[in-house]
């Protein structure tokens, strides 16, 4: 997969929040085989706690994808993105402009506006969006070269609520990298996303809140790989009726 000119081998992107400890996070990152981890920015205390976290991130060797989580306006998201670029020294930004506090649904109008501003400033925007095709087109016009539709509300673990919407996105944007971001709960959800032709999956809570995060990270990695291989192998069409798989020609008659 190529995103903004960068070749990515692993199709699993992993969030770094909510793990029981930094050691468990590090183990999960390692067993997931991910090359891209998401991070955020929060108010610093004078004891410099953020610096230690940043050092541990760099040790993973992964590319950093900072987010604008928690931003509800274009102004907040743009300011946060500029701060993230300086802090993490990357033009990549996972752009979130949240429109609804209960569902954490993206505000696609604000998202398009913020994408236009940031793209013009040289950012490489990864927009957290819905599966709305028109919003997707507007984001591409605004300079985005990748789209990240939600699977279900962030942290809900519901899996893909609208597989048909994702299928339509794949058909409508055949050459645009599509990354399902949010809502994945189980390995089967990740496999389903990949079978639909998504290019990658971004998840966090499903691994961080599993009983064994490193084990789940590995399970997700295998599911993503299996789903992708399945998509590339062109699955058969569903049928309404049974069709014998064993040849009937030459069947013995005993009656």
């Amino acid at each position, binding site marked *: 997969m190529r995103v903004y000119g960068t070749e990515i081998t692993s199709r699993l992107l992993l*969030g*770094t*929040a*909510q*793990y029981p400890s930094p050691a468990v*996070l590090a183990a999960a990152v390692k067993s997931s085989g991910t090359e891209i981890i*998401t*991070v*955020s*920015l*929060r*108010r*610093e205390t*004078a004891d*410099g*706690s*953020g*610096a230690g*976290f*940043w050092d541990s*991130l760099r040790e993973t060797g992964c590319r950093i994808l*900072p*987010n604008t*989580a928690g931003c509800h306006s274009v*102004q907040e998201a743009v*300011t*946060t993105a*500029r*701060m*993230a670029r*300086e*802090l*993490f020294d990357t033009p990549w930004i996972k752009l979130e402009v949240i429109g609804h506090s209960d569902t954490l649904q993206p505000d696609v109008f604000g998202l398009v506006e913020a994408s236009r501003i940031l793209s013009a400033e040289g950012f490489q925007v990864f927009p957290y969006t819905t599966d709305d095709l028109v919003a997707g087109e507007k984001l591409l016009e605004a300079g985005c070269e990748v789209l990240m539709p939600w699977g279900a509300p*962030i*942290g809900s673990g519901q899996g893909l609520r609208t597989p048909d919407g994702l299928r339509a996105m794949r058909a409508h944007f055949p050459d645009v990298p599509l990354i399902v971001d*949010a809502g994945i709960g189980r390995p089967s959800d990740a496999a389903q996303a990949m079978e639909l032709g998504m290019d990658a999956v971004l998840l*966090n*809570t499903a691994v961080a809140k599993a009983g064994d995060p490193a084990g789940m990270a590995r399970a997700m990695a295998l599911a993503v790989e299996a789903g992708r291989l399945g998509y590339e192998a062109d699955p058969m069409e569903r049928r309404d009726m049974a069709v014998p798989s064993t040849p009937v020609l030459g069947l013995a008659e005993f009656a």
Partner: protein
Amino acid sequence: MKIIVNAEPRDVSATDLQAVLHELGFACSAVATALNGSFVAREQREEVQLCEGDRLEVLAPMQGG
């Protein structure tokens, strides 16, 4: 001079942003700053003068999804 730093009222004697960060004990290389809602780049901090009541945000890397 009284300013608001990360939503907390603080009293500082320095006037430029770089010196204020130093006075408040922040490791200047490991934080990003915004003044009254607008980003201030690292290389601009020395030139930016703070005023009474200014709102300063000092952010650091944090876990995120």
